[in-house]
């Protein structure tokens, strides 16, 4: 096998899911190539400066970026070949991936692939949304936590899910003033503890409110907010102008499923998990037998579920390459599935659990439909 253009396992995306998939597969002796379009691996992990929740057994209480550092150290100790600044732009029927790096196109033939391409912030359109100073919450988080740059001093946060609440707190840590958080629903969407942290610092959380406009000459100088009811009707009388220079949009993420689609993985639309995502079975295998999926690509959840799914995908790929016995695989996979089930407990996890079960059902009916149509 020529090392440069062939590999046993290609992992696309070096965020928490991809890193865990590569580490797990390499542990089983799978020759693995990890590809990421960024100059550094880690995905969203290094932006997470708060302590993670979950079970103490699995590293709860540790700041996200420290978990990232541990994973990177493991990758370095392993045999995984890491290709950074490399975009995967193609996926052919013969399992050759098209890589683009430094102006050169490289083919990479992979017997198996794990897609862990993550997610993208959803935009919110409103008057003035293209003005400099309107940014996605992820973008703001990248700037403040990775690059040490504060893109604004007075912030309107749009959206009270965990991302919005956490980034609002991190903006305060970075030295900004969060003038308000607006949430279109009548209750905070994210976890109470994240809302509590900012409320007790004096940040108003305005429920049933939305942003109407970002105003300014060449960049944001003001935002206009107004009450909104359950049928999306704006109450113009309640309009207020806020003196802000940064409007941060945190209205949800969607899986980056373009490569999966290109690879002919069948997608399904699962709204609570972000939109179109590749359908998969309980081993993380997609509708294309050589392709596995993991992390936010397989449904928007959290870093902890991404890591567990990544491990599972890496293990499943290794198993399919004959690198571990059925028994060993079953034992390890069951442990991971137990961890995933634990992370999906509770009122917040319930919908995600239901949706992940729905994905499995729809995956199975895909196969049934294809089988009855004569198969491929």
């Amino acid at each position, binding site marked *: 096998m020529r090392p440069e253009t062939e590999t046993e396992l290609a992992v696309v995306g070096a965020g928490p899911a991809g890193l865990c998939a590569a580490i797990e597969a390499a542990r089983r002796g799978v020759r693995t190539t990890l590809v990421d379009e960024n100059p550094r691996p880690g995905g969203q992990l290094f932006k997470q400066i708060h302590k993670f929740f979950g079970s103490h057994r699995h590293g709860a209480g540790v700041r996200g970026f420290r978990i990232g550092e541990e994973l990177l150290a493991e990758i370095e100790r392993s045999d995984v070949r890491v290709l950074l600044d490399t975009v995967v732009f193609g996926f052919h029927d013969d399992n050759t991936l098209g890589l683009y790096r430094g102006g050169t196109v490289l083919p990479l033939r992979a017997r198996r692939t794990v897609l862990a391409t993550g997610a993208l912030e959803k935009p919110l359109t409103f008057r003035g949304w*293209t003005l*400099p100073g309107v*940014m996605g919450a992820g*973008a703001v988080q990248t*700037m403040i936590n990775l690059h040490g*740059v*504060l*893109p604004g001093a007075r912030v309107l946060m749009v959206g009270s899910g965990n991302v919005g609440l956490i980034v609002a707190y991190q903006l305060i840590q970075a030295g900004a003033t969060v003038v308000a958080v607006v949430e279109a629903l009548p209750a905070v969407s994210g976890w109470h503890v994240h809302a509590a942290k900012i409320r007790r610092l004096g940040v108003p959380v305005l429920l049933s409110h939305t942003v109407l406009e970002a105003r300014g000459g060449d960049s944001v100088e003001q935002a206009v907010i107004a009450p909104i009811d359950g049928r999306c009707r704006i109450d113009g009388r309640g309009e207020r102008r806020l003196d802000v220079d940064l409007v941060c949009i945190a209205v949800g993420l969607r899986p980056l499923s373009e490569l999966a689609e290109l690879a002919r993985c069948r997608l399904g639309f699962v709204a609570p998990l972000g939109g179109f995502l590749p359908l998969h079975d309980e081993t993380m295998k997609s509708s294309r037998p050589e392709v596995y999926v993991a992390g936010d690509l397989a449904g928007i959840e959290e870093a902890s579920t991404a890591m567990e799914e990544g491990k599972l995908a890496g293990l499943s790929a290794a198993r399919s390459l004959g690198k571990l016995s059925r028994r060993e695989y079953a034992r390890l996979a069951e442990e991971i599935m137990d961890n995933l089930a634990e992370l999906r407990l509770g009122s917040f996890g319930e919908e995600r659990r239901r949706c992940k079960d729905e994905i499995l059902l729809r995956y199975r009916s895909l196969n049934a439909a294809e089988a009855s149509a004569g198969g491929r």
Partner: protein
Amino acid sequence: MNRRIRRHPILEFDTGRARVHITVNGRQVEAFAGEPIAAAILAAGIRVFRRTARLDSPRGVYCAIGRCTDCVMTVDGTPSVRTCVTPVEDGMVVESQRV
């Protein structure tokens, strides 16, 4: 206006990163080696990266993950470079484009 975060309760910045210099529309801007061009530009307090051809609308950074193309600029003569995912190099010449 310098928008670099000097002190942070959790993170450490500025620890031994090499400094480089780029020019942005003729203005010299200090940057840290390896950071994205967009970070250096925002750090220098510059918010307008380009203006659109038809409506002359100012555009800056939106997604910072290389997907939305709001932040594209001409870098060393090459147009439409996504500044949010392209690392700075000493001496880079960065200019707005009308697209």
